[in-house]
């Protein structure tokens, strides 16, 4: 997969406007092989993003296999609740996944609304 400068800028803008602007701490767009395509870390640059991407892709792959075992085509989102930090994974298309790290000040419902919007915008960008 090769994304040009313009597409990467548009991806960065869509993630910043919809997610970072809404209070999400960090967001990462990865592919299902575990490669990092775009990442924005809002004040938490110490996170090991390459390891997180590898594990997130594997986690999503494992969940997809589990979905098939129980008769679902897929589980399109994953949510992990922590004491202070939470993780939210969402499938963009067959190749791309979005990973969000956010604290308890944002409600999951609000984040889901924002995610729906950003997924729409990302799909338009990668289709260019």
């Amino acid at each position: 997969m090769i994304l040009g400068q313009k597409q990467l800028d548009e991806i960065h803008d869509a993630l910043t406007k919809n997610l970072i602007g809404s209070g999400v701490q960090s967001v990462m767009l990865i592919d299902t092989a575990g490669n990092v395509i775009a990442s924005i870390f809002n004040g938490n640059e110490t996170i090991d993003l390459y390891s997180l991407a590898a594990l997130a892709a594997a986690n999503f792959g494992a969940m997809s296999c589990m979905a098939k075992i129980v008769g679902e085509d897929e589980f399109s989102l994953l949510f992990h609740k922590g004491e202070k930090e939470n993780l939210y994974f969402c499938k963009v298309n067959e190749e791309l996944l979005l990973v969000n790290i956010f604290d308890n000040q944002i409600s999951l419902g609000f984040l889901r609304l924002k995610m729906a919007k950003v997924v729409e915008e990302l799909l338009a960008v990668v289709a260019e």
Partner: protein
Amino acid sequence: MAFINLKDRVIQAKIVYYGPGRCGKTTNLEYVYEKCRPQVNSEMVTVKTQGDRTLFFDFFPLDMGKIGGFDVKIQLYTVPGQVKYDSTRRLVLKGVDGVVFVADSAVGRREKNIISIRNLEDNLKIYNKDIHDIPLVIQYNKRDLAEEGIEILDIETLEKDLNTELRVPSFEASAVAGDNVVLTLKKIISLTLASLEKQLK
């Protein structure tokens, strides 16, 4: 396929260590991790069982510095070797750019090596990749077992079993002692980068 970021000028390529259970895939990665600490900016991730067997994968990114104006990051992965973990092996193979097949030199492991390389061929086909085309290096590991009085397969037999048809570069190695571990890695990195360059042209 590798991910190439034209904005940040970064290439991320994925190399997977494959082979039967207990052949030394994790030991290879652990040795590289220790030897290349300055080029690794993160902890090695290991998803393993209580008995220390790899459950999902081991992983760390290796920073190769600038090549042709691009920052090249090699993502090193292992797979779980045991037969029952085939679905996780397939997941790790997704997007693979190069493979190191680690064979166990012990006489008793001959059949397991053959089954594993066939399994690699089958799992690559799922992603429309051909074992004959993908950058591949074979490592005949555990050559040091002979010094402990354990019978090992001779290289001719291993080559006949695993490399007659493929004819890929192969190395005798001892991952525990570190013999030829880095050489194996250098070879697969150079084959993988050459293949990526060819695909880009």
